[in-house]
């Protein structure tokens, strides 16, 4: 179940894409750090920080020396997922149109299928953003026995859902 969100209540949001675009250390050269837009399904991946920043600058408005960038749209980061415990390995950051609302409903869902199938059965740690709680499911379309809610940064999702996630709910 999902429900509409009062988009106007969200207003503007500033986005700094570097969250998903981790630094280009030697160990990270083979890692992949992707951003997926919940609404459009567009996915962009980066291997290095420089490449990520360059790409981010094309999409955002540079706004001063702090490297903060203001997104012209009302998107917010809703969750970041990692393939290793402790926020290591590859990462997938999902962003969408608004924060979650705490009313017992799943506001958004994201399937790790199709072009995102490479992320399926790989998630080991997760971070909820934008007041969202995260639910992990072993089947597409929020199917199967879930685990959650993950209300805070979670260094390990637990044995039950480790490397088993195929769809994600945001509530």
């Amino acid at each position, binding site marked *: 179940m999902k429900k509409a969100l009062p988009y*106007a209540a969200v207003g503007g949001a500033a986005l700094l894409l570097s969250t998903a675009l981790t630094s280009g250390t030697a160990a990270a050269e083979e890692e992949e750090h992707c951003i997926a837009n919940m609404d*459009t399904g567009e996915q962009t991946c980066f291997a290095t920080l420089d490449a990520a920043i360059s790409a981010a600058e094309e999409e955002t408005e540079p706004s001063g020396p702090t490297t903060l960038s203001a997104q012209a749209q009302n998107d*917010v*980061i809703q969750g970041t997922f990692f393939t290793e415990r402790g926020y290591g390995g590859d990462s997938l950051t999902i962003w969408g149109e608004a*924060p979650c609302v705490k009313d017992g409903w799943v506001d958004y869902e994201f399937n790790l299928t199709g072009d995102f199938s490479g992320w399926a059965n790989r998630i080991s740690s997760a971070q909820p953003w934008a007041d969202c709680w995260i639910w992990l499911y072993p089947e597409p*379309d929020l199917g199967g026995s879930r685990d959650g809610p993950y209300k805070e940064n979670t260094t390990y999702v637990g044995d039950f859902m480790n490397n088993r996630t195929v769809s994600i709910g945001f509530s």
Partner: protein
Amino acid sequence: MTTAAALRRTILACGSAAAAFAVTAGLAAPAHADHEDTPTARQLLERCDNGTDACVFHPEGPLREHQAARHVVGDPVYNCTDREQWMSVSWADTTSESNSVGLSLAVEYGFASVFKASFEVTYGHEWKTEHSESQTTTVITAPGEVGRVYVGPKMQTAEGTYELRFPDRYYGHYIWYVPFEATGPTEDQSGTITQSTRPMTSAERAAHC
């Protein structure tokens, strides 16, 4: 775009999500993209838990440990005798944390406590803002040598992003993200003290012997 289409189909298949997007699109308020004034990272972090609905630090990646460049501590010792000498060097040294914003993490409120709590949960040990050490180190110097003691502290670097959610627009936006990186001393500082000797220069010999 293929990816977008694939995902959209997936969402549509779930039913209500499509309705959600359709309804909300019509309610979209114009973003204040033309807002020219932008707060600094320092301004934003000073508002963490001080006027925000929520302030969360999202760690990024594993902790990186490294050894800082060694530096001389205490005074050098000069062996002006014709025998090997065991010479004592008393020294004290303090290693402090630093971060990308320049605000102190030593305080126990606001962005500092948010960072330290997140750090401890993520990495399983406390963030150490400062490490102080003092001792007397014995340096063995041969005749005509100068001896020095060095310390190269073990450091740890954590990085991530603060997410600040405001009840009202702050500089035109309800949500701000602030990248943050902090480096500080590790709890274990074993093996960080070294010493070295070398022949005195003629100038050193003239000055100290």
